[in-house]
């Protein structure tokens, strides 16, 4: 596909501030076609940008004007369901949720559940090492991924991992979260889990945000690992109540939605402990969803946080940093100060169990300077995350969005080592160039020459 209308359909992803048409777009249906395209691209020196469903929030699938965009959506068959060995072998274009849909008849599910799970694909999940709300207990994509078949730059195919691993270097661990920089996944083997028989959902309301933070720490400290533990602040509660009235207390400074699961007695035991701990931590109320409808309603509010905030302003930036849980009160206070400084509203929703923050910054791109201010506000939040011992991204990936912030977390030597690994897969630098790394550098320099003072060569090389 190389016509303007066709390319326009693939001109970006869910990081909507950036748009770019590709040189051409290919939509392969088989592994062989992927290999053939990559062989051709390698010979001609043409860059490749892989794309799943284009739901990346960090610009991972943003096309380049001089690169082929490879959309994997037509490789959309589940190849094997192996209940005996609790795994599913699938093509990369299958959506995340269809894996669970395919195995739930037998009481199984696929654990990673990013919010875009209706649309996002398995291949994209592998590239971004996608998370979701159940990561503390059930892990990210990488913990639920047994193997992949990957086409390398140049067209060679390799198997990394498998139903029983591969006994070599853990290159599968590197492939997960590699953001399309190392190769294209054409097949993935996923672990499926037996669905817990009982799930119970509680809501605790707090008069102060630090109390909520303490409650989270106390629950984990008491040896309870909830399946999910989500925090929403007052701004967010108000927006969500206006939007879909899930029944959250408007007067609370913050709420926690806590889900526990397991066999009946296990869920009961955990629910009891959580209730005690929340009350001791100063919760003004702890309620439990009494039936499935009520449970869905409680979650509906959390899941509507983005659209609800979206009604308050035309544009929204969703950030994604992780912090150690004990730093929570300090970070929340600092973010409120920043909001004043940058003159932009925001709200806080986050995966409290694993300390993964998702501040939503609201702005209006039509107003002079607001986009720049929103981006600066976002960058300041992520710098704060690193400052308190956390990381730049918990689940959305670096992409183009956080590329220039990488030096906040990593030294030149840290980044040079990462780039040397990239070169081991892609010596010509053709895969998703301009993503993840703040500086483009020639592999030959990184690999074979001394990197003086830790500085990578060609710091002024233009970025695509």
């Amino acid at each position: 596909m190389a016509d303007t209308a066709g390319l326009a359909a693939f001109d970006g992803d869910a990081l909507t501030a950036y748009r770019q048409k590709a040189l051409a777009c290919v939509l392969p249906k088989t592994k062989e076609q992927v290999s053939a395209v990559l062989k051709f691209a390698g010979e001609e020196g043409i860059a490749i940008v892989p794309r799943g469903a284009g739901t990346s929030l960090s610009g991972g699938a943003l096309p380049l004007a001089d690169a082929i965009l490879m959309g994997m959506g037509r490789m959309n068959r589940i190849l094997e369901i192996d209940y005996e060995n609790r795994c599913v072998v699938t093509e990369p274009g299958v959506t995340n949720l269809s894996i669970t849909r395919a195995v739930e008849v037998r009481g199984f599910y696929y654990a990673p559940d990013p919010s875009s799970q209706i649309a996002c694909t398995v291949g994209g999940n592998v590239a971004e090492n996608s998370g979701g709300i159940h990561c503390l207990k059930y892990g990210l994509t990488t913990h639920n991924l047994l193997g992949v078949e990957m086409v390398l730059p140049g067209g060679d195919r390799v198997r990394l991992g498998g139903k029983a691993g591969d006994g070599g270097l853990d290159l599968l661990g590197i492939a997960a979260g590699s953001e399309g920089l190392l190769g294209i996944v054409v097949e993935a083997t996923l672990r499926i889990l037996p669905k817990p028989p009982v799930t119970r959902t509680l809501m605790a309301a707090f008069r102060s945000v630090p109390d909520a933070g303490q409650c989270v720490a106390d629950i984990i400290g008491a040896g309870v690992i909830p399946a999910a533990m989500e925090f929403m602040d007052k701004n967010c509660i108000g927006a969500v109540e206006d939007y879909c009235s899930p029944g959250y207390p408007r007067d609370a400074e913050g709420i926690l939605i806590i889900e526990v699961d397991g066999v009946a007695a296990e869920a009961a035991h955990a629910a009891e402990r959580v209730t005690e701990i929340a009350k001791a931590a100063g919760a003004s109320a702890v309620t439990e969803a009494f039936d499935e409808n009520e449970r869905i309603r409680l979650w509906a509010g959390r899941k509507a946080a983005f659209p609800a905030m979206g009604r308050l302003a035309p544009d929204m930036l969703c950030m994604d940093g992780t912090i150690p849980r004990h730093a929570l009160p300090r970070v929340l206070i600092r973010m409120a100060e920043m909001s004043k400084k940058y003159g932009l509203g925001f709200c806080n929703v986050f995966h409290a169990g694993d300390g993964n923050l998702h501040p939503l910054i609201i702005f209006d791109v039509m107003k002079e300077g607001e986009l720049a201010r929103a981006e600066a506000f976002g960058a300041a939040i992520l710098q704060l995350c690193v400052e308190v011992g956390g990381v730049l991204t918990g689940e959305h990936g670096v992409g183009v969005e956080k590329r220039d912030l990488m030096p906040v977390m990593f030294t030149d030597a840290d980044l040079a080592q990462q780039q040397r690994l990239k070169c081991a897969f892609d010596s010509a630098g053709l895969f998703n160039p301009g993503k993840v790394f703040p500086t483009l550098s020639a592999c030959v320099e990184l690999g074979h020459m001394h990197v003086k003072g830790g500085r990578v060569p060609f710091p002024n090389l233009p970025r695509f």
Partner: protein
Amino acid sequence: MISAQTEADVIDAVRDARAKSRTLEIMSRGTKRAYGRPMSCDDVLNVSALSGIVKYEPAELILTVLPGTPVAEITTLLDSKHQRLGFEPVDWGAMLGTATGKSTIGGVLSADVNGAAAIRYGRARDSLLGIRAVNGLAESYKAGGKVVKNVTGFDLPKLMCGAMGTLGVLTEVTLRVYPKPPQSVSLIVRDVSVEDGFALLRRVWQSPLEATALAYIPASVPITQLGYVGEGAALIRLEGAHEPLKEKIAALLAIARSAQPIEAANVFDSISRGTIFAGRNCDLWRVSVPSSEAAGIVRQMGSSVFAADWAGGSLWIGLDAGGNGAELRAHCERADGQATLVKADEETRQRVAPFPPEPAARRALTRSVKAAFDPQNVFNPGRMWKAV
């Protein structure tokens, strides 16, 4: 032998080795020196003094330690806060004929040795969140992070697990830890065949009981503690608080009516450690296969020396000493699995590739990755394969 006390010492040692084109064997307490291909390095870099707890935050479920810290020290520390490592690190010292009780966390991670509970909590690589390390260019770097949820940059910590020290020298590791359930019970199902035993373990694994050990022992590998086992015994470990555990046991009895509680908590450890094979004159192979294929492999090989962990997904198989394992590897390949030679004499480990041979495209990639970390082949050259 060069003894490093600090990361700076490691950097100096590597810089020096690099300048003089010398190779280094990376060693801590040396309990697994007899694992992998024999090497003849110019020097030994001893990192056992890089030991100690850097930071333990029980409420964050995070532990940062220096890699030379003994596993026993970590276990004691975590135990004091009712926590533990999920992958249940294993000490291979006794099996490999070296010291027992001395293995360090860096060695366990580098060799990727996992115990019974890994079937529930994942392997060492799933718990290693962050590292500091020194590469073959004598540069220190960090990767990963000190929080559970992190996707910033390539996940280099995972790559270090099981790399046998061929990619660099770890100088700090950050691990996630898990709460230790208040109670644990082991149950035995006696007199089951390999086929029936593995199928039973799989049914438990497919159920929501979250068993933390699923093992099988044949009559030919006697364990006094278990008493009569008939043809063989399936062993299951369930954990939880009092009431949940009662419910889990009841649910297990619905799957396996004859299951009986037994005082045998250390049986799982002795299986992972391979000490149940003490005194047998055979080579020990570790086989990873999809569980449903495991009984077939056991039957095809016909060896009476074997045991299973992870519902059959991880097998020990003892074969005649000095063999080349070709038949075992062929069966494993057909079963979508692979076999690693863990215990054999030096001559055999020199002659037979202990780690699974790789297909051509994959081999080329492995070598490029090695070169990306250690271009001059300073670290443990040939420990995994001839070129790595």
